[in-house]
């Protein structure tokens, strides 16, 4: 269900001045009674959208240097990696930093045979058990079809299964992703890594090869080019061993080509389902990419001319002459990059991410122009982040789970050890946004309508409460710093509001929180420091779970 606040208020018949007027007033209606809820100020709004949440240091930088300068540094100046952060990660996950082939060999060295899921003992299939069928099927593999040679899996890997060691690579990647989003000062870069990882979505949980190769995709495709240009990204993604496994390019050979990558390349990665391609174009693009596969000796991309269909092809009305070899695929990629529908689609997705679930077409057009010849990421970001549409779109998005989860830690200046990151992936899984786990190739939705179901909210509220209560043993929050010497329920609420939410509360909401903090007593009574501390945790949980923090 796609519905924004404006539409909703009209539907619900809530008497409200136009959004422009509400903006001018600096507030918008809240409860049925029309109690005004103040919008966040510009710094809060901008910082939230271009990061995984506002750390105190971000705030003071933006306040002292100005928000425009802050954006300039994020877009143009900061280095992508933070050395200390990578040092910590490498200590925890040394294998994830091995050279490609060594890494693949390491993670598959101890793979064990076993069904990927557990059937009840009482389950009795009519003929053979699933395990027998699975083994028989694995042995049959493709050999009966005569194509195993085209599937460059190491045979020992293919015949082994399936669970233990390769899974550690994916666990490492997910935890590293959370840690980088939490710690990297170059927040906009991490936001773009998430954006492109989601645009070129790979469900890494779908096969053991992907447990390992998605880590390589992140390391060698997404992260190096997240702030560069779409042309480089698309070409790198087409050669990504993870993408080749995920969309079956690895076994796409001349004769009866595999259409999986060809279709999603057009529908999802570039021109979109309305981009003007026909079913015949899918077949022809699939032929162009025959022979794009993986060399088992290097565990890396290779082009195998013997598997390539070298006949003439016609793609989107253009003839691709015979004998092009690997250039057929390159031509298709370049053709799609130059197609106007691609610029429109990427621009729309970026504006949806940064501005609003209903991307304003005026801004989309300008970002589309900034896409240029190659899809210049920085130019497009620059166009968005200084636009009035962006600056005015306050409270128009709801944080997705990854944003909410990390921002709660950043807002409270919390720290978490590299050995405790499972705490975050555990909660993300419950909220429905475990990284690289979306089951379809279109990537996690970027609209509030999907994310604010009762189920997802339930797990958000549990997480907010966990953080507020100190995160068990795994998350360290300096509560004294957040409380800042408050001695009464009223000053406690005010201090936490200023240090964590960094936005104004409506009078009603403040009064309700203060009453809760005071447990119904006198909010101005001086409380013991133990009492203040015990109330601080739950008040913090309340604030993180409120709409003030869920929006972003």
């Amino acid at each position, binding site marked *: 269900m796609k519905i924004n606040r404006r539409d909703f208020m009209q539907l619900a018949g809530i008497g409200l001045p136009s959004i422009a007027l509400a903006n001018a007033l600096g507030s918008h209606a809240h409860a049925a009674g029309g109690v005004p809820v103040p919008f966040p100020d510009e710094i809060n709004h901008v910082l939230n959208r271009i990061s995984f949440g506002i750390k105190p240091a971000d705030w003071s930088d933006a306040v002292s240097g100005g928000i425009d300068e802050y954006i300039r540094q994020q877009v143009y100046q900061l280095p992508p990696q933070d050395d200390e952060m990578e040092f910590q990660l490498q200590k925890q996950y040394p294998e994830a930093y091995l050279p490609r082939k060594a890494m693949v060999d390491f993670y598959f060295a101890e793979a064990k045979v076993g069904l990927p899921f557990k059937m009840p003992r009482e389950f009795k299939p009519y003929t053979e058990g699933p395990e027998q069928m699975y083994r*028989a099927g694995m042995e049959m593999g493709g050999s009966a079809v005569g194509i195993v040679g085209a599937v460059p899996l190491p045979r020992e890997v293919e015949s082994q299964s399936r669970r233990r060691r390769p899974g550690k690579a994916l666990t490492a990647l997910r935890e590293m992703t959370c840690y980088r989003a939490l710690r990297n000062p170059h927040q906009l870069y991490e936001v773009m890594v998430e954006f492109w990882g989601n645009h070129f979505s790979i469900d890494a949980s779908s096969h053991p090869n992907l447990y390992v190769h998605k880590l390589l995709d992140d390391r060698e495709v997404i992260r190096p080019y997240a702030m560069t240009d779409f042309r480089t990204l698309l070409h790198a993604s087409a050669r990504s061993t993870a993408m080749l496994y995920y969309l079956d390019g690895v076994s796409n*050979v001349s004769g009866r080509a595999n*259409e999986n990558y060809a279709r999603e390349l057009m529908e999802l990665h570039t021109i979109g389902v309305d981009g003007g391609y026909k079913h015949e174009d899918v077949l022809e693009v699939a032929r162009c990419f025959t022979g794009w596969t993986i060399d088992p000796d290097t565990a890396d991309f290779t082009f195998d001319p013997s598997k390539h269909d070298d006949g003439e092809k016609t793609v989107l009305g253009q003839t691709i002459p015979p004998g092009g070899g690997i250039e057929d695929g390159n031509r298709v990629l370049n053709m799609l990059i130059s197609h106007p529908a691609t610029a429109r689609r990427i621009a729309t997705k970026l504006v949806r991410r940064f501005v609003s679930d209903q991307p304003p077409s005026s801004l989309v057009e300008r970002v589309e122009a900034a896409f240029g010849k190659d899809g210049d990421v920085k130019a497009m970001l620059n166009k968005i982040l200084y636009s009035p549409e962006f600056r005015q779109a306050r409270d128009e998005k709801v944080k997705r789970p990854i944003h909410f989860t990390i921002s709660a830690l950043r807002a409270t200046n919390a720290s978490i050890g590299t050995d405790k990151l499972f705490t975050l992936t555990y909660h993300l899984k419950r909220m429905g946004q475990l990284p690289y786990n979306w089951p379809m190739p279109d990537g996690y939705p970027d609209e509030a309508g999907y994310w604010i179901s009762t189920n997802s909210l339930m797990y958000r509220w549990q997480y907010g409460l966990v953080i507020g209560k100190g995160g068990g043993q795994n998350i360290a929050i300096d509560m004294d710093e957040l409380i800042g010497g408050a001695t009464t329920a009223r000053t406690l609420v005010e201090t936490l509001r200023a240090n964590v939410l960094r936005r104004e509360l409506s009078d009603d909401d403040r009064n309700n929180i203060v009453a809760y903090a005071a447990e119904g007593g006198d909010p101005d009574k001086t409380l013991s420091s133990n009492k203040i501390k015990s109330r601080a945790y739950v008040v913090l949980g309340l604030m993180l779970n409120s709409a003030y923090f869920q929006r972003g």
Partner: protein
Amino acid sequence: MLRREIIGGVGAVAALGLLNSRKAAATGHEAANRDVLVCVFLRGAADGLNILVPHGDPYYYEKRGAVAIPEPGAPGGAIDIDGYFGLHPALGSLYGRVGANMAFIPAAGNPLGSHSHFDAMKSMEYASGGVSGANGGWLGRYLSQTTPAEPNPTVRAVAVNNGVQASLNVDLNDLSGYPANVIAALKSEDFQLNINDDGQYQDTLETLYGCESELDENSRTLIALLEKIKTTQPWLREPQNGAVYPEGGQGLGERMQSAAQFINAFNDLEVVCVDMGGWDTHANERNRMNLLVAELAGSLEAFHQDMGSDMNNITVLVMTEFGRRIAANNSAGTDHGTGSCMIAMGGGVNGTVHANHWDGGLVNMRTHDGDANAHHGDVKVAVDFRDVFAQLMQRRLGFVGDWNKAFPGHGFQELGFDLFQSR
């Protein structure tokens, strides 16, 4: 202003129903006696030809090669039903139900003919003739046109899912009907706030949400749901009659168990939607389908056992966005096709293979067949999924609303065979 009043009065209905409707359900209760509907959506396009296998058809083996399910009697072979159709061997545990209360419909599905997962799923869940969600989903429209089964319901539909499926969306352009009261909930035992302060935290949290957006709406719904779950405790129900659900895999077993718990605990519940992913078998199809079908069969069988005689008042309907190509590709898989098969299970189902529309063999059932190397050729859609939905609504769900609203641009059309018995 707080929880107790919300739950105690009409506030609960208002909170849950604000988005959905304004009409009070207090009068005109039709003493509806209807099935609980459980929709299982196989995401990724399940290969109907390898679920309900036309093993008696040489053309199937000619085009499928080693991706075909072998003939009955061969290792891993199909389980024969009628000499022409048979079941994937992993469906063997359900063999006895065909001929009783489990039906298979080949060449069924989505006449849209799109080969895009996303467009095909949308059009099937919306069931409004295209890919626009402007009229909401078919189940949302069904609920808003139908008097709630119980007066003042808090939950009429559960999406056993992280988000609510598109089929349960209501028509935002027509809020004149009954509240749909849809929630998303994967596991009932997780629906509690771990804080022990006599509801003060929860009450305060509720005040911090207004009623101006979907976020506010869902928050209020969630608060009401927490109260309902606290008193009904669905998770306490253990599987009955020796049922054992599969664990892991695509998660269907856990979700079907959750469905059973919600059906048992919520007597106002009418519709449950469950998803199972993983069906996009472009490569290595035999191996992958062995696992997927085993999980599907194990989950359906466990659910059936668990619900016991309640299955007389439950219909399970299994669907997918489209089927797969008749011919295999060179990756030991199949690419996107058109028609697939649908499965229905329940006390009101005429259990058999409904295949009168299967016109003289697979070669006659082809569509999209223009390509020279015959790597084209889908199974056509001889049974429109909307007509299956319509007979279900008419005969099992007591639908008496406007068919042109139920299926815009299509209305009611006869299915042409008795898939369901009238209640």
